[in-house]
């Protein structure tokens, strides 16, 4: 004790100050926000009286401009606001100024750790903890609508709101591209997966049928003979996943989504699917799948699409490759890629192609720290309304597009011309189809100008082949649980097993890789994961009213 006194005495005030600072910093660090803050319910008494028949943004008389910060968890998001025709109109209509902040998960985590939250937040992963614990940091849309803007309930899809409902019966986030059963039934959603082949190759071989494994293998051989400079068969970059050879191929040949009892079905071990993997392995052994296809990243794959390196491809995400396919098509007339029926189920199943489901893509939230939640809510309503949707996709009538007699929409020639020939300027001036926080496929269907020419035939081919995969959405074990860890190990194992199987030197090593995967499943809580997934599928069906 004596020593401590002496030391403190010697070091004096400075030491104490440093120590004190340290203690303060530590306690300060541990405080944080914790999402325990209360929502900032501003009063709208002297601004407007809510009207369920009229959107609040048309009623709000607030005179000063409202400044809002909006965090988007994507580095690629264009942070400009108010310069192009779309955001300029939004700015005028709502009398707001939005400052966009972009970043990755690290930055998102910093917001939560630092406690200084933006007004609005957009995230992507519906399975993440940020979304599942939204009740701790976001304001429920139900309460916002009731207090500030009941018109929201007219423009939001009831099914989507119900789908995102949390345990407390409230919905906190609203996504874009959330497709409900009604959307699927309307036929307005275009397919995004296709088996495509270069037209010149297809015609040179006499438009062969390649539905069965034998036919497929033999056509690939013929391609190699006639077009030795091409790689006969390609697929999306595999990376840490399965490229287009996992669930995209399973959907393509119509592997069932569930067991007959409505429980989780392990589609990776489906007999029909494994037959096709064996066929692809045979094609690989014939030298008709390049080793590089297994190592390429997204950029390398895109380069090959752009230069027409693959004779045929199972392509998932045709809109994402639309630009590259268009570039290839414009430079190589008559050699463009076309969709054909391609591989078929050996069991006679029809394709069950997938598209964006009810979970959608980007999910938007209003945080409890929002300075003016009423204004924030008005953005949701505005963009979700018919008016907002048309504005995002086609701009302003008379200025950028005209409505035709049949109700469809057409861009004005000058705008269309810029879209085709000066894409950068087009983005800067018009930004059509890009400000898509609440974007939706059904509005894309309003115009022939919504998609590039190169993928229209592929989308037409996919008509009638889409099947909603709603029951399989968000069925993974909750993050942080032992099952979630086991599942991530299993996914990693499946990724390497799939590639090993496709690159097998003989049938025996194909079977060995598969057997090793199956025993890996047993060692890693697979039974528990299946149970959780079946349970969550049941909940999904209840939510969707399928039971």
């Amino acid at each position: 004790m004596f020593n401590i006194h002496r030391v403190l005495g010697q070091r004096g005030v400075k030491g104490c100050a440093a120590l004190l600072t340290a203690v303060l910093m530590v306690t300060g660090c541990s405080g944080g926000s914790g999402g325990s803050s209360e929502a900032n319910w501003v009063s709208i008494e002297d601004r407007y009286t809510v009207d369920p028949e009229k959107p609040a943004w048309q009623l709000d008389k607030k005179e000063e401009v409202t400044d809002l910060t909006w965090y988007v968890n994507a580095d690629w998001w264009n942070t400009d606001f108010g310069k192009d025709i779309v955001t300029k109109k939004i700015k005028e209509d709502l009398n707001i100024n939005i400052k966009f902040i972009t970043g990755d998960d690290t930055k998102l985590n910093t917001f939560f750790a630092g406690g200084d939250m933006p007004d609005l937040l957009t995230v992507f992963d519906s399975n993440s903890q940020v979304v599942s614990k939204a009740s701790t940091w976001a304001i429920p849309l139900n309460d916002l609508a009731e207090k500030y803007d009941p018109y929201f309930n007219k423009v939001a899809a009831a099914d989507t709101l119900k789908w995102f409902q949390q345990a407390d019966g409230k919905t906190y986030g609203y996504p874009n591209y959330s497709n409900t059963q009604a959307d699927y039934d309307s036929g307005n959603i275009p397919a995004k997966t296709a088996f495509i082949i270069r037209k010149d190759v297809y015609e040179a071989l006499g438009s062969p049928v390649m539905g069965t494994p034998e036919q497929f293998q033999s056509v690939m051989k013929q391609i190699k003979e006639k077009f030795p400079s091409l790689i006969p068969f390609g697929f999306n970059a595999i990376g840490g996943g399965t490229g287009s050879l996992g669930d995209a191929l399973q959907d393509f040949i119509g592997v069932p989504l569930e067991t007959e009892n409505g429980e989780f079905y392990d589609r990776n071990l489906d007999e029909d699917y494994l037959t096709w993997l064996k066929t692809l392995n045979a094609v690989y052994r014939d030298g008709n799948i390049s080793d590089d296809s297994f190592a390429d990243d997204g950029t390398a794959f895109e380069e090959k699409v752009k230069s027409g390196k693959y004779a045929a491809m199972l392509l998932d995400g045709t809109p994402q490759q639309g630009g590259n396919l268009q570039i290839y098509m414009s430079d190589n007339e008559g050699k463009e890629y076309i969709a054909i029926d391609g591989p078929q189920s050996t069991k006679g199943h029809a394709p069950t192609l997938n598209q964006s489901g009810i979970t959608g893509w980007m999910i938007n939230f209003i945080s409890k720290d929002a300075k003016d939640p009423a204004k924030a809510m008005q953005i949701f309503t505005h963009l979700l309304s018919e008016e907002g949707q048309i504005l995002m996709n086609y701009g302003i009538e008379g200025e950028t597009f005209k409505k035709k007699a049949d109700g469809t929409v057409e861009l004005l020639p000058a705008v269309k011309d810029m879209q085709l020939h000066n894409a950068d300027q087009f983005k800067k001036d018009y930004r059509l189809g890009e400000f898509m926080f609440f974007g939706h496929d059904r509005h894309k269907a309003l115009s022939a100008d919504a998609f590039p020419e190169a993928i229209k035939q592929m989308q037409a081919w996919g008509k009638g082949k889409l099947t909603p995969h709603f029951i399989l959405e968000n069925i993974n074990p909750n993050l942080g649980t032992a099952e979630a860890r086991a599942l991530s190990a299993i996914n990693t194992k499946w990724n390497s097993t799939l590639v090993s199987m496709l690159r097998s030197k003989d049938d025996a090593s194909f079977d060995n890789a598969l057997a090793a995967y199956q025993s890996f499943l047993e060692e890693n809580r697979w039974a528990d994961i299946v149970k959780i997934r079946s349970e969550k599928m049941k909940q999904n069906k209840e939510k969707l009213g399928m039971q």
Partner: protein
Amino acid sequence: MVLPGILFMIVFCYIPIYGLTIAFKNYTVIDTLSSAPWVGLDNFRIIMSDKYFWDAVVNTLGISFLKLGIGFVIPIILAIMIYELNSGRFKKFVQTVSYLPHFLSWIVLGGMLITWFSTTGLFNELLLGLGIISQPQNILLDAGKYWWIATLSDIWKEAGWGTILYLAIMSKIDPTYYEAAKIDGASRMRQIWNITLPNMKSIISLNLILTVSGLLGSNLDQTLVLMNSQNREKAEVINSYVYRMGMSQGDFSYATAVGLGVSIISVILLVTANKITSKLNDNQSVL
């Protein structure tokens, strides 16, 4: 004068240590450091039974020891060879060429390697041309070769740069030693053995200590660029595993627990290496 330094250390080095507590908690992004529930040693127990973690440990040690075994000696040999060169111009040329790869990031070098190792790349063309193989194969997909690819490419990148310290110390050696040795009739090899190497002893020891203590913490950039689904089982190192668990899977507690374990082992390695080298240096510790 010392106070700003102390404060800096406290704020940026010691306070963050508090964050290590999440290794003993079940932490999610929504929680704060204090609100996350304690789970004791659960995270460490899970690590013990995690096959992928142990794979990563084996790979880290394998690759690091290969790099240490080969990569530690080569800069010394290279430095002596450069030192022994007579022509000033040629010396400069060799130095520039050997330093160059150090200034390129792994993103750039990795991209080059991926192209060279692809089926239509430099190496396959070469092997096909020499008739060593008949079918081109993507070499990076071959897990069995990964450790060597990692080691040799790292040596290619860093060997030249590693010579700088040695060359600096060699320039300090008193030239009269060499003159005296020459008069005594010592050969060049003898001079290197009896004069150059003993004079480099302390700097070699220091380098060894620094390298050994960093054994478990290296290889991240290289791994992230060169790893793919097929070589993962041989390529995943502890750092890339921590990165994957923490950043992409959001399992922060687990990733922190792994990081904490690695830090403790690194300290042990550091102290051991210091002990060994001080024995070699007449009980004088470099640290």
